[in-house]
């Protein structure tokens, strides 16, 4: 059928795990924006949701680290983290093995993605699903990009991956939603957690909203690490969504929330 929905959101574990420590007004605004994203996604009536996420060593290690991996399992589980720490109960997530296999086959026309019939989800996917599919009744196809263990896939390849996802979604008869979840600037899992480069974030989101392929792909990893921290490598997921959707973006929410470690972001993009 087609790609019917494209969005982006943050996935920081603090969003759920440290919710009570944030400014209530900021937290409520973020939660409302996530709910709006859920309603918009549901209105597109997707048969399956592809989550383009960042691998955090929940599934792969340096003994065999794929640049890209797509899940085609029957069922998944998560979170791998202590559920009380993340404040998301351990649960099962339905997969879409048949759709996933066809998506993988089409993606492989241009991108040598890995695939996995087993998958454990960490905060990188569980936090978005907690808001977007709270009853865990939507079929999910996880699609992770290695943003943690260098060498990392180049930005122009992340763009190609997004284009491949789009082509694959358009090739299957089902209705496919895609949500990318990652970055933007943050220094997670360090004493600097909470440091945010808001100016960098706003410039990045301006490039994303304009769907400026050249500008979105122009960052070097050295620049990103310097200006946006190791968490900034996760722009690959947002870039892939821009490549998949092809239209103009609309940012519904963007606020730095230091206790959540990131400029929390919710947005959608036109599909053209």
């Amino acid at each position, binding site marked *: 059928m087609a790609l019917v929905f494209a969005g982006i959101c943050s996935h920081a574990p603090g969003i759920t*795990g440290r919710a009570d420590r944030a400014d209530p007004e900021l937290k409520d605004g973020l939660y409302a924006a996530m709910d709006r994203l859920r309603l918009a996604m549901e209105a597109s009536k997707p048969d399956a949701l592809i989550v383009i996420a960042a691998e955090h*060593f929940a599934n792969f290690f*340096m003994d065999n680290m794929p640049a890209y991996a797509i899940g085609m399992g029957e069922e998944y589980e998560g979170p791998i983290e202590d559920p009380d720490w*993340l404040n998301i109960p351990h649960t099962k997530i339905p997969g879409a093995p048949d759709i996933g296999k066809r998506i993988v086959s089409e993606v492989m026309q241009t991108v040598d993605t890995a695939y996995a019939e087993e998958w454990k989800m960490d905060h990188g996917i569980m936090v978005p699903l907690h808001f977007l599919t709270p009853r865990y009744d939507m079929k999910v196809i996880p699609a992770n990009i290695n943003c943690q263990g260098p060498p990392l896939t180049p930005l122009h390849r992340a763009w190609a991956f997004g284009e491949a996802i789009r082509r694959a979604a358009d090739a299957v008869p089902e209705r496919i939603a895609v949500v990318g979840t990652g970055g933007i600037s943050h220094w*997670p899992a360090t*004493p600097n957690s909470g440091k945010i480069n808001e100016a960098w974030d706003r410039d990045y989101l301006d490039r994303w909203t304009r769907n400026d392929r050249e500008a979105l792909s122009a960052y070097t990893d050295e620049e990103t*690490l310097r200006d946006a921290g190791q968490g900034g490598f996760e722009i690959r997921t947002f870039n892939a969504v821009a490549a998949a959707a092809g239209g103009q973006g609309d940012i519904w929410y963007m606020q730095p929330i230091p206790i959540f*470690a990131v400029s929390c972001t919710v947005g959608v993009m036109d599909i053209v």
Partner: protein
Amino acid sequence: MSLYGVQKILYRINRDRELQDQFKADADAAMAGFPLTDEERGWLRDGEIGELYIHGVNGQILMHFAAFLGLEWNEYIDAMKDGLAQHGQVKGGLYKVVDGGSGGAV
């Protein structure tokens, strides 16, 4: 220093409930078969988050392990700060501290 081995067992513990239970019951038995030094075994056995951080364990791997150990967020951040205070900068990897660790939020 076999950082690869340390990170590999932490990766396995973080995602494998059976290994988690084994590690809690008998850490040394759980660590058998992994390429670890005696010093590293001690850090893992004693939950020395600061030492593991300083020696370059990837932050995501370490954050998940700290949650498994039951460290509350501020305790986890403080453990990394203690490691920095004792040893100075992180020895390798992507998770080096910047600006001396300032700018964080707890």
